[in-house]
């Protein structure tokens, strides 16, 4: 009575085959990441030291450390975050909670998704035109960060909107039916239950801009500048551009150096992601439904 039929057995075999196939694809995906990390650690690891991290480059960038670039990248990402998060979150709140469902809203949503696909060099040129020249910020941290911010806005909006939509609609209805306004509903029910997703999603997205090179090379990042920036109107070195420069533009750089810079850059991004993921896990533990 409980004998497996021919069909049962075949289904079971097919099932295992598919499982194996998907596993293979996953391994294929992870492999490049592991190889890259492995090579970087193997070749760049030995050069990394306290001195490497916290001193200026010397001898035409063929020796010394990366401190100005490290600090510069932190500046760029921080200012970009400050600029893009309030605007992006506000826009997402409007689109998710206020906007009527009409063709204009749909067009805007479509435009946002497409905006995320604009190549970074186009953003760079826009940044030069808008921030460097038109607003007369010059080549500065401000101009570069705003360019990065514009570039990340679409993904910030999308990440935020997804977190907002994850809050069940029934909660909003219940709140409206009590006579709460849209804003009161957002303030007391929607935001408290989506803020963790918003923050972590946004940090994840924005941290990736640490590696962007094209948008900052014309707008605020300097080839070589052995000082720390004093304000947002200064130019600065940045890790990504520094990596590009010492890999391609400067002769006589020791082989380990670009690998070391790349390793530090990846380490920064991973550290930010780790903070973000830890934060998310902490908040998810307190999830209320």
């Amino acid at each position, binding site marked *: 009575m409980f004998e497996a039929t021919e069909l049962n057995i075949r289904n079971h075999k097919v099932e295992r085959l598919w499982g194996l196939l998907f596993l293979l694809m996953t391994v294929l995906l992870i492999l490049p990441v592991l190889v890259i990390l492995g090579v970087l650690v193997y070749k760049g690891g030995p050069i990394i030291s306290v001195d490497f991290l916290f001193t200026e480059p010397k001898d035409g960038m063929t020796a010394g450390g990366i401190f100005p670039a490290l600090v510069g990248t932190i500046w760029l990402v921080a200012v970009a975050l400050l600029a893009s998060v309030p605007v992006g979150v506000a826009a997402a709140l409007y689109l998710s909670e206020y906007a009527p469902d009409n063709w204009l809203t749909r067009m805007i949503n479509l435009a946002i998704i497409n905006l995320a696909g604009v190549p970074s060099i186009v953003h760079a040129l826009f940044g030069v035109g808008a921030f460097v020249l038109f607003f007369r910020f010059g080549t500065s941290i401000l101009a570069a960060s705003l360019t990065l911010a514009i570039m990340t806005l679409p993904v910030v909006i999308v990440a935020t909107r997804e977190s907002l939509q994850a809050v069940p609609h029934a909660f909003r209805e219940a709140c*409206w039916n*009590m006579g*709460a306004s849209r804003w009161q509903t957002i303030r007391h029910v929607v935001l408290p239950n989506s803020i963790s997703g918003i923050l972590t999603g946004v940090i994840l997205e924005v941290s990736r801009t640490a590696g962007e090179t094209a948008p900052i090379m014309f707008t605020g990042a300097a080839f070589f500048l052995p000082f720390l920036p004093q304000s947002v109107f200064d130019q600065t070195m940045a890790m990504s551009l520094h990596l590009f420069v010492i890999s391609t533009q400067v002769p006589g750089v020791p082989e380990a150096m670009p690998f070391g810079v790349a390793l530090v850059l990846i380490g920064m991004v991973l550290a930010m992601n780790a903070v973000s993921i830890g934060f998310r896990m902490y908040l998810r533990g307190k999830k209320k*439904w």
Partner: protein
Amino acid sequence: MVGQTASQPGDARPKVAVRNLTIRYGQKIALQDVSLDIRENEIFGIIGPANSGKTSFLRALNRMDLFTPGMRVDGTIRFDGRDVDKWRNVYALRRHIGVVFPLPVGLPMTIYDNVSLAPRLSGVKKKAVLDEIVERCLQRAALWDEVKDRLNSLGSLLSGGQQQRLTIARALSQDPDLLLLDEFSIAIDPVTTMRIEDVLKVLKEEVTIVLVTNLVQQARRLADRTAFFLMGELVEVADTEDLFTRKASDERTQAYVEGRFG
């Protein structure tokens, strides 16, 4: 088909007067040309099979159409003599109307906050007043004894039936003039349902109640008058006992209450 039973002489001032109400979602008509009166301090039952416009009717009463894309309401609804379209502020209107949904919605906050949120949003600040509201509403919803020792635990962690009673407590928290119950007993066990029905019988001294229900017998137990909706049409309104005991004036109503269809 509406005619005589809908607005009887002597209803000098009905609590809610509905005239020629038509509700559409896009092209689809959910409710067509309904006129009826709901009297002060009665339980007004609405019965009818699924998709007959009962819920849409409730949504129109507290102007949820504003927040529902595609929903269009024509005709007039007067609440205490005032056209609900003309309230300068729908939030003020909704504070007079409590709503309970078919499925429980425990907001993801503490039990205490679930019940005290609405009063707080409308400006009540004193802790003592809020405490009193919370206790009274939970008592009324037959939930107080089960949760009085853990008011600070999460409302969304209660069982389904408890969450539904929490929803009822929340609907009562602003002392509404009108209470809309949309199949409130779907998620509750029969014993608790009976307890809440008892509460409703007492409550109607102070509140006008509209009870949408799939349970024909529940309408019979509770409602003073009952309306029968069928496929977006109001078939008839009558005193509940008339509807159930004597021949209902419409054959379809009779068939429905006797369980011959629907």
